[in-house]
């Protein structure tokens, strides 16, 4: 994996302070630090409470599929050519490099925190990267038949035991699953399984079923760490953006 993308901003914080309001209800060790191995909290209805601010353990920004064994990810010929082109051109066409949204599932491999909120009939995820959000409907609705394609897709979710299963479709046709450019298309059906293992950790299993780009579904595992006592800050990608003229990919 070579370089690039997420080239843009990260506002410099010089004289001002980080947001450091203490998160209420955090289990703490005697030294006051959060006890990340305390049991996972539950909502009043007995389901795991996924709410909180989370950050990726890292390592998958450039290649979401890095842990897969040879043969587990099998491109269609068209997608193989496209991926090769994106690699050879150092991701210069990455939409995120032009401040368009990162999209899903890439929001979960870039190194920016996100915040999960529970509300009636819905879970909302606020992402720091590109300052965007996603709604996961839990009111029993089905995926729409022919949704308008979007970067974040359309998501419905339900509980299977202690795992939140999120089914999504309706993605744009030029999706990038990671900064390296694994393609996603309008035929992408995404299944994400969120499991809060303990207070401090969420395991996320992501299954990519996109017959236009891959000959069979494939699954990766990601991990997130609770990030209490801070907050999302504003990420405005196109403010004073100076990078695009300097992209070097041919």
């Amino acid at each position, binding site marked *: 994996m070579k370089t690039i993308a997420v080239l843009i901003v990260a*506002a410099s*914080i010089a*004289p*001002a*302070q*980080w*947001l450091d*309001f203490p998160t*209420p209800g955090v289990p703490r060790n005697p030294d006051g630090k959060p006890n990340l191995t305390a049991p996972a909290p539950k909502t009043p209805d007995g389901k795991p409470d996924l709410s909180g601010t989370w950050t990726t353990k890292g390592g998958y920004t450039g290649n979401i599929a890095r842990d897969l064994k040879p043969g587990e990810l099998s491109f269609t010929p068209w997608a193989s050519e496209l991926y090769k082109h994106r690699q050879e051109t150092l991701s210069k066409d990455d*939409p995120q490099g*032009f*401040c*368009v*949204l990162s999209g899903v599932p890439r929001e979960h491999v870039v190194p920016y925190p996100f915040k999960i*909120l*529970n*509300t*009636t*009939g*819905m879970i*909302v995820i*606020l992402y720091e990267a590109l*300052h*965007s*959000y996603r*709604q996961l*409907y839990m*009111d029993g*609705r089905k995926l*729409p*038949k*022919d*949704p*308008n*394609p*979007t*970067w*974040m897709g*359309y998501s419905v979710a339900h509980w299977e035991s202690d795992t939140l299963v999120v089914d999504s479709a309706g993605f744009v046709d030029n999706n990038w699953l990671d900064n390296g450019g694994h393609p996603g298309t309008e035929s992408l059906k995404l299944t994400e399984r969120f499991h809060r293992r303990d207070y401090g950790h969420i395991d996320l299993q992501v299954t990519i079923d996109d017959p236009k780009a891959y000959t069979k579904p494939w699954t990766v595992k990601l991990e997130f760490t609770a990030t209490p006592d801070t*907050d*999302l*800050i*504003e990420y*405005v990608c*196109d*403010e004073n953006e100076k990078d695009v003229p300097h992209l070097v990919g041919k």
Partner: protein
Amino acid sequence: MNTVPVLRLLLVGTITVAASAQWLNYPTAGVPKTPSGLPNLGAPTPRTPAGTPDLSGIWEPENTLPCDPNDGGDNCTDIPIGEQFLNIAARLKGGLPYQPWAADLSKVRAEGRGKDDPSVRCLPNGVPRANTIPTFKKIVQVPGMLVILDEYNATYRQIFVDGRPFPVDPQPTWNGYSVGKWNGDTLIVETIGLRDGLWLDGMGNPLTDAAKVTERLRRVNFGNLEIEVTVDDPKAYTKPWTVTLNHFIVLNAELIDYICVENEKDASHLGK
């Protein structure tokens, strides 16, 4: 203030064309109905289990400014707008109490027909301007917080309602840092930490980093939300001033993404 020849440029970006795909039209749950089966917009304000008014829902601002193509078409934006979109003080008697430099700046900006408007270049609208941008907003009210999801740039704003104080020296941002508290049935939201150089509206009334913005959110009934905005910005205005922005419930719909920078073709055609 005269009507400004602004901004059909504004909201230039991209509206995703829904051509073959469907609109999102899942029925809204829990809507009170009249005997004839229509939504009863005058029904009482819903409440949360905690007893406060529930502001949750999708809202759109007043957008009744007539579009007359024979009159230059300046009000003929791709989404209908209200007069406060162009001039947040359109209904303020006597106009805004400008400091002299701010009066000059708003005149220059108005004459520039919005060419320097940050939102024309897909930057955030910020606070309080987002309240007059005609994209749908969804208020999500959860314990300790209010989140406003905005179709514009598919972005959001957080308002903390958990009793926290303001940070001492917040990093300046387009949305600032907002804390809210209930006073009777009104949620009073105060915001500081705003970035310098914000635009309050399409004609370019300025807001500076000295501003404190207070928004009083009152859901009058099921279908109506009033946001009374007080701007206290001694750098730009000689005294605080207050305007009221009306919002209306949107039912059986959903937010769609409005990604301003995607396939943006307008910036290079703006005025000199």
